Structure formats: structure tokens, C-alpha cells
């Protein structure tokens, strides 16, 4: 193979955004090696600049005519671009949050950012990976970095415990996923590319075989772990409670988005023949997640644990779009994840800010906060109400679109359950708002009574404030001015060839013809 052919098969320009992230990652590490702790003043901004550059690079790849790269191992289509953008953006906001948090915990910022960027890299590659080994490698890159980040504050026993738990469950679910993947390799007679697997399985008559169903279930177990769908959710509350808060902000948005990207790509490309089966499985997961996530969140006293169960519930809502399996369904998932990025990161910014100033994150300790810190109260109230789906905030539009797409696809039961659990979720979100806003001055908690003077001039507070205000504004108006985001979400699906009904139909038709 001559060089020109090789270059066109590689098509390495597709991964330019990831390339920028890698360079940033190396830059952060090297700068830290040379300058040591003194670099921590601006190293965060370097990383953010890198991530933003990467997002800009993604923008230029939009509607690329030739998205397949690396001989089919990576697919830079619009679907992947949207998800890579979500992952990169969530990492950027996470860095804004973590500058002060990591400094205050007495650990090195550069290492933290380096691991976070590695996780980002894993997530971004996972969003576009279309080959089994590639999927596995990027999944593991994301996972191992997540374990490291979870246990980053290593003097805190809860962080240690969380890391161990996360590692044990994560490693075993990866093993299960790997077993499913190896079954796929075997069933398809030695194919590793997702589209090739689908057509091989279709032609070889394994279309409805038990082996394919087992492979499907094993793969779903691995995905379910990443998106914390209900039976695979048990790590979520413990990890969220123990890990550093910026880390769970990233896990709840970036890692989850990558998981959903993997779910869409893997399930639609590889398993079109057992679409009814995986839809059934995800219906069950969605029902369990919505019910369990939202009902158990009612009983939580810690803010981070409450947000953990809420994120399980939110994953359940997003799965409605996946189960719908229509273009509108996938677009509503993309839209909701975009919106979810703003509201969750805004919420976590406030939680971080509160715990930086007071050192606690018990819900009861928030009472009477409105007098001492109006911005924090506003931010947390808006983000929680948006998570609860209150108009005219962003989350309302996200939920409406999910329910609308679900209803159009005939998933009446799921939508009704989604509506019911939304009502339940309003209760526990409003409980926090009540603590902050409704409580009288004399009912103020001790922590709030001794609340420090609100000051943004301490090192690392300003980026936190910037992140908070930006996500707050986005959460408030992204619903009303949602047309660009809707267009983005719809186009990302419409321009993605694997999700077009025609391709699915043709594979199925060819399968039928060959049987």
C-alpha cells in the first residue's frame, strides 16, 4: 500500500480534536514537571484553552463528507461530534470547578487535570469508536482514569473506599462487556468492525440465535454500568458520596454521555436484528432506573447522594429516547444530554461552592442560605428546578422532547411512568430549594450562621464563579432559546448514516434475502 492510500485510509484529520487534547495533556504534564506547584495558578486555564480549541476543531468537522478514519476503527460522524463536544465541554467546566477544590484538598492540580484529560480523551474516542478493540480501549481509558480520579483525595477514607468499590464493580463489568464483545467476534466469524459484524451475523444466520442474545445482554451490562442504569447502578451513590465533587460532576455528565454514545452506536449498528430484544431490555432498565432513582432519592440526606440517585433517575429518562429508537428519539437523547450538562454542572458548581465555604454537603445544612449567599441559592435552585422539569427552564424542554418522542414511538407506558416519576422528583428537588429559600433566619443551620463573607477574590474562586454563572445562564435560557440546540441535536442524528432508517432496512432486507 502506497502512502497516499494509507493516508486516505487513516484519514487522521478526523481525530484532530483528540489530538489537541493529547497535546494539552502532555503540555500540562511537562509544565508541571518543569515548574512544579507554581504552575498551578494558570495550568487550569491552559487545559481549558486546549479543550475549547478541541471543541472548535470539532466544529470544523461538522458534516464531514468522509468521517470514517483509521480503516474503520473510528467514525467521526455528526453523532460522534456532538457527543465528543459534550464530553469536552463537561471536562472544561469540570476544570473550572476543580481548581479551588483540588488546591484546598492539598493535592497537585496538574496531575488531576492530566488524569481528567485522559478520561476526556477516552470518552471522546468512545463516542466515535466503531471497532470492538477500539471501543474496549477507549472504554478502559475512561474507566481507569475515573477510578484514579475517584480516589484522588487519597487521605480521605471515603474517597479510598469509593475508588475501591468503583474499581471492583467497574473491572468486573468491563470483563462482562469484554466477554460479550468476544462473543460478537466469534459469532461474526472474525470481524471486529461494528458494521461488518452486523452484516456477517445477518448473512451467517445467527440473526436470532441465543449466542447473539447473550452477547447483547453482556454488552448491555457494560453499558448499563457506565450510564448507571438501575440494576447496574449500585456504585453510583457510594462513588458520588466519596469521590471529589468535581470528579462526580464529570462522571455524571461526561462519562454518562460517552456511555450513551456507545449505546447508540453499538446497539443500532451491531444489533439491528435483535432490536426488539434490546429495546425490551432497555425498557426494563428505564423503568427500574426511573422508579428506583427517583424514589430512593427522596430519602437522602446528603446532597451528593441525592444527586447520585437523581442522576440514576435522569438516566432513566434519557433511556426513553433510546427505547423509542426513532430519529426523534435519538435527537431527544442528544438534546437532553446537552441540557443535562448545563443543569448538572451548575448544580455541582453550587454544591462545590457550598462545601468549599462550609465543609459540608448535608441537605439540612443548607437551610437559610438565601440571606448569606443569594447567587449560590439562585444557582442551585434554578439547576434543581430545571432537573425537576419546571418551565421555562431548560430541563422542561428536554423532558418534553423526550416524552414527545417516546409518545410518538408508542412508548405510552414509559412516558406515563416518566411523568409520574417527574412528579416524585419535584418533591426531592424542591426540598433543597425549601431549605435554602423558605427557611426563616431563625431556622438557619449553624453552618450557615457562621457562613464566611462571600468573596470571589481568593485564588480559584473566580473560575468557579464564571463556570457557575455561565451554566446558570445556559440552564435558564437554553429552554426558551432552544431552537439552535434543537437544530444541532436533530441534525446530528439526521446526518448520521448509521441511524437512518434506510440503512437499517437494507441490512434487514439483505438478511431476509440471505436466509
Amino acid at each position, binding site marked *: 500500500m502506497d502512502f497516499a492510500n494509507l493516508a486516505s485510509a487513516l484519514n487522521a484529520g478526523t481525530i484532530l480534536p483528540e489530538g489537541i487534547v493529547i497535546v494539552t495533556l502532555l503540555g500540562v504534564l511537562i509544565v508541571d514537571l518543569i515548574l512544579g506547584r507554581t504552575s498551578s495558578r494558570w495550568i487550569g486555564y491552559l487545559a481549558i484553552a486546549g479543550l475549547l480549541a478541541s471543541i472548535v476543531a470539532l466544529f470544523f468537522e461538522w458534516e464531514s463528507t468522509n468521517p470514517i478514519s483509521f480503516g474503520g476503527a473510528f467514525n467521526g460522524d455528526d453523532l460522534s461530534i456532538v457527543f465528543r463536544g459534550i464530553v469536552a465541554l463537561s471536562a472544561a467546566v469540570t476544570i473550572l470547578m476543580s481548581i479551588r477544590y483540588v488546591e484546598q484538598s492539598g493535592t497537585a492540580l496538574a496531575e488531576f487535570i492530566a488524569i481528567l484529560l485522559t478520561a476526556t480523551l477516552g470518552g471522546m474516542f468512545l463516542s466515535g469508536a466503531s471497532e470492538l478493540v477500539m471501543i474496549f480501549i477507549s472504554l478502559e481509558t475512561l474507566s481507569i482514569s475515573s477510578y484514579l480520579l475517584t480516589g484522588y483525595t487519597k487521605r480521605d477514607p471515603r474517597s479510598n473506599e469509593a475508588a475501591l468499590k468503583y474499581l471492583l464493580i467497574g473491572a468486573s463489568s468491563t470483563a462482562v462487556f469484554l466477554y460479550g464483545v468476544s462473543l460478537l467476534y466469534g459469532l461474526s466469524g472474525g470481524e471486529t468492525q461494528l458494521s461488518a459484524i452486523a452484516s456477517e451475523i445477518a448473512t451467517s444466520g445467527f440473526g436470532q440465535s441465543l449466542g447473539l442474545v447473550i452477547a447483547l445482554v453482556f454488552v448491555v451490562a457494560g453499558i448499563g454500568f457506565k450510564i448507571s442504569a438501575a440494576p447496574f447502578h449500585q456504585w453510583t451513590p457510594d462513588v458520588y458520596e466519596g469521590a471529589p465533587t468535581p470528579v462526580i460532576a464529570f462522571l455524571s455528565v461526561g462519562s454518562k454521555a460517552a456511555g450513551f454514545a456507545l449505546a447508540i452506536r453499538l446497539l443500532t449498528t451491531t444489533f439491528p436484528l435483535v432490536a426488539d430484544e434490546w429495546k425490551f431490555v432497555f425498557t426494563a432498565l428505564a423503568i427500574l432506573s426511573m422508579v428506583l432513582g427517583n424514589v430512593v432519592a427522596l430519602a437522602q440526606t446528603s446532597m451528593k447522594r441525592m444527586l447520585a440517585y437523581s442522576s440514576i433517575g435522569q438516566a432513566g429518562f434519557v433511556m426513553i429516547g433510546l427505547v423509542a429508537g426513532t430519529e426523534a428519539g435519538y435527537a431527544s437523547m442528544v438534546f437532553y444530554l446537552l441540557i443535562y450538562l448545563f443543569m448538572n454542572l451548575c448544580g455541582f458548581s453550587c454544591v462545590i461552592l457550598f462545601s468549599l465555604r462550609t465543609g459540608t454537603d448535608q441537605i439540612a445544612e443548607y437551610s437559610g442560605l438565601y440571606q448569606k449567599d443569594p447567587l449560590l441559592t439562585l444557582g442551585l435552585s434554578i439547576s434543581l428546578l430545571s432537573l425537576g422539569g419546571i*418551565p421555562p427552564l431548560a430541563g422542561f424542554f428536554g423532558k418534553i422532547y423526550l*416524552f*414527545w418522542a417516546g409518545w410518538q414511538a408508542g412508548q405510552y407506558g414509559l412516558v406515563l411512568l416518566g*411523568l409520574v416519576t417527574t*412528579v416524585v422528583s*419535584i418533591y426531592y428537588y*424542591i426540598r433543597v430549594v425549601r431549605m435554602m429559600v423558605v427557611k426563616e433566619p431563625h431556622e438557619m443551620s449553624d453552618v450557615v450562621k457562621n457562613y464566611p463573607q462571600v468573596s470571589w477574590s481568593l485564588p480559584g474562586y473566580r473560575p468557579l464563579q464564571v463556570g457557575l454563572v455561565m451554566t446558570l445562564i445556559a440552564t435558564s435560557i437554553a429552554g426558551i432559546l*432552544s431552537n439552535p440546540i*434543537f437544530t444541532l441535536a436533530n441534525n446530528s442524528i439526521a446526518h448520521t448514516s448509521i441511524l437512518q432508517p434506510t440503512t437499517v432496512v437494507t441490512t434487514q432486507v439483505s438478511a431476509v434475502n440471505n436466509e
Partner: protein
Amino acid sequence: MLSTLIWLPILGAAVISLLPRSLPAINVRLTALTIAGFVLLWNIFLLLKFDISLPGMQLREYLPWNETLGLSYQLGADGLSIIMLLLNSLLTWIAIYSSNQTTERPRFFYSLILLVSGGVAGAFAAQNLLLFFLFYELELIPFYLLISIWGGEKRTYAAMKFLIYTAVSGALILATFLGTVWLTGSTNFDYNTLSTQTLSTALQIILLLGILLGFGIKIPLVPLHTWLPDAYVEASAPIAILLGGVLAKLGTYGVLRFGMALFPEAWSILAPSLATWGAVSAIYGAVTAIAQKDIKRMVAYSSIGHMGYILLAAAASTPLALIGAIAQMFSHGIILAILFHLVGVVEAKVGTRELDKLNGLMSPIRGLPLISALLILGGMASAGIPGMTGFIAEFIVFQGSFSIFPIPTLLCVVASGLTAVYFVILLNRTCFGRLDNDLAYYPKVLLSEKMPAFILAALILFLGVQPNWLVRWSETTSAAMVAAIPPIEKTVTTQVALNQ
């Protein structure tokens, strides 16, 4: 045009929340009052511009918003909504006027009230189902906060109950809206192009039941009403005025607009049971009110009773009954407002709402004679004494419904009689009798505290004497709405509409 009614209060809310913290509460109140006054004036201006001879939507506005969701910013008003819009801006103004001059956290309080007012106006004017739902859900959190921050002793419980009930109501309504729009094959939520003719009757009935349950919680109808006594009683007087005067109307408006007008066939099938339901609601409200020992609870239950008439009239769906229903919605709004305001004044001055402790407020020197007199007037208006607007509305309702549903109508007449019973009990125990000489050192009632009641009383009397001003707005609209409904039962004969 109509947008001003929505956005002026919301902008006002933003302005008020940005006022400096050092500003005394009374100035914040004045600002809110001015803004609400402007909204009211604008609304009156719109009412004068409104052409009562046209049955369709007027003052239309359209802006594309979100095509993916089928959501557009589409406003319009017909005879039904224009009156409700007026009621909303009138009662917002009254509610702000009747609020305490030294409210705690005034900026937050008044911006929430204005926010609610804008949202309600949006819901009444929305011509897109999703837009309606958006405005409908917009009330949820502000009202929750208004009850739970400035309420009575059990406000936490009451506010949470209100929140959950209303959220459930919202979920039911959204599910029905999604269902209606999707099943009719429509691609957007535009109200005016929606037609349910193609749906099977069974499906229509299911969807209509969803609407009825969803809005029935808000109205509230009898088995769904249990949030109401708590929320009304624990809310402060201005909030109770808004809750009962405006928010309950959102429920009846929803039933008329989205139940009756969208599902005419199913409506005519369910009408007999709805009439019975309305009658049961009316009787239940009246009987329960008799048993209450707290005057605010009495007024709260009276509200349940009076909303029953509206359901009866809507079920009968003759042009006359429908005019009556709309008139009843308006007059119940202002009567409830005057009653809640007066009860609030009595509570503030006397310090109790217990029937067993109140006595002799009519006493000219040491009692609250003027307040008692107005209370008597309000009670009489509520009980349907001729010369006041309550009588007009109820009489039109009964007149319009009797030919279709004689027995439920008679039951409602009985309920109307029972209303007189508990208001006589209320007035007898509070206004008449002797003052307790040891305890009766009540503060003076300021003129500004009497003002809202005077205005409302004047309105009640004026509309009672000149009912044409109450009914003329909705005559063509109700005739057009009724024309779409297939005749109910065999007793239907040609009804004589008021305007013929």
C-alpha cells in the same frame, strides 16, 4: 397586545427583584401596585377594543418558536378568555393592594405575585396546547413559595400538598395533550387546527377523562379537592385571593377550553355524569362548610361548592348555561376575593378566625362595623341574594341547565340554599352578638385596608344591577362553543339564548 399582559408583569417582577435591598417594604409594594395597575389599565383597554360580535379568537399574535416540539408562541382571546384575563389582572392588583404593608422579604413576595400573574395571563391567552401547559406549570413553584414562606402555621405541609397535587394535575394534562395531539396525527400543538373528530369515541372519552381529572384537581372537584382547605387556609390573604380567585379559574377554563371544546362528542356522552358530579360537589362543599369552626375554612369550602355550579353549567352546555358558567367564574372570583380579604382583615385585627371566639364585630364603636357590613354583603353575594352578581350568575346557570338536567340543577339550588345557611352561621357568630369587653381592643382599620373591599363591593353591586356588563362579552363565544356539541339526551329543545 396580549403579550403585554404576560410580559409586563414578568418584567415588573424582574425589576422588583432588582430593587435595592434598602428600599422599605412599602415602596416595593407601591412599585408592584403601579405595575399591576398598568396591567389592569391595559387589560381594560383591550376589553374595550374587544369586538363582542365576533365568535372567534381576537387580538391574535403569532411567533414561531420551536418547530421540533410543535410549540409556537400563539396568543388569542375570545369571550371566555378576555373575561378571565380581566379577572386575573384585577385580582392581582387587589391582592397586591390587600397585602400587608410591612411584608417580610417584600421584593421576593411581589415579584413572585407578578410572575404568577404573568403566567396566568399566558395560560388564558395561549392558543397552543404546549404553550398553555408551559404557563400552567409556571404557577407551580411561585405558588409553592408564596404559600410556604408567607403562610400560616402549617404552611410547610399545605404548600407541599399543593405542590404535589398540582404537579400530578400537570402530569395528567401533559399526558392527555401528548395523547390528543399524537393520536389525531397533528404535527404541532396548535389549538385552532386540532380536531378530534377522527378519533374513536372510546379514545375521546379516555382523553376527556384525563383532562377532567387533571383540571378537576385544580378546580377542585370533590374527591380531588383535599389540597384546597389546607392551601387556602394556610395561605396569607392576598395569596388566598389569587389561589381561589384566579388559579381555580384556570381549572374551569381548562375544562371548558380543552375538555368541552376539543371533545364535543365525548362531552355530550359524559355530560349527565358530569352534571351529577357538579351537583355532588356543590352539595358537599356546602355541607362541609356548615361543619367548619374556622371562617377561612368555611370560605374555602364555599369555593368548592361554587365551582360545582360551573361544572353543572358546562355539562348542560346550552348557550345560556355556558354564559352562566363564565359569569359564575368571574363573580366567584371577585366574591371570593372580597371574602378572603375581609377574613384576612378580621384575622389581622382580632387575632383569631375561630367562630367560637369571634363575636359582635358589628358594634359601631369598638368593633369593626364597616368590615362586618362588607362581610355581610360578601356573604350575601356568595349565597346568591338578588341585586348582587352572585345571584345573576347562579340564576343564569340554573335557568340554562334546568331543561337538560333538572335533578342536578335542583340539587344545586338546594346547595345554594345551604350556602345561605352557613353564611348566616358565619355572620351570626362573627358580626352579631356582644363584644367581649375584656378582649375587644382592636386596632383601627386603615382606609387602605378597606379600599380593596370597597372596590370589590362596588363591582359586585354594579354587576348585580347591570348584569349585561358581565355577560355581554361571552355571548357569541358561548353560542359558538355550544354549537359544536351534539345534543345531549332527548329533552334538548331549542334554547333561547340571551342575545336573541
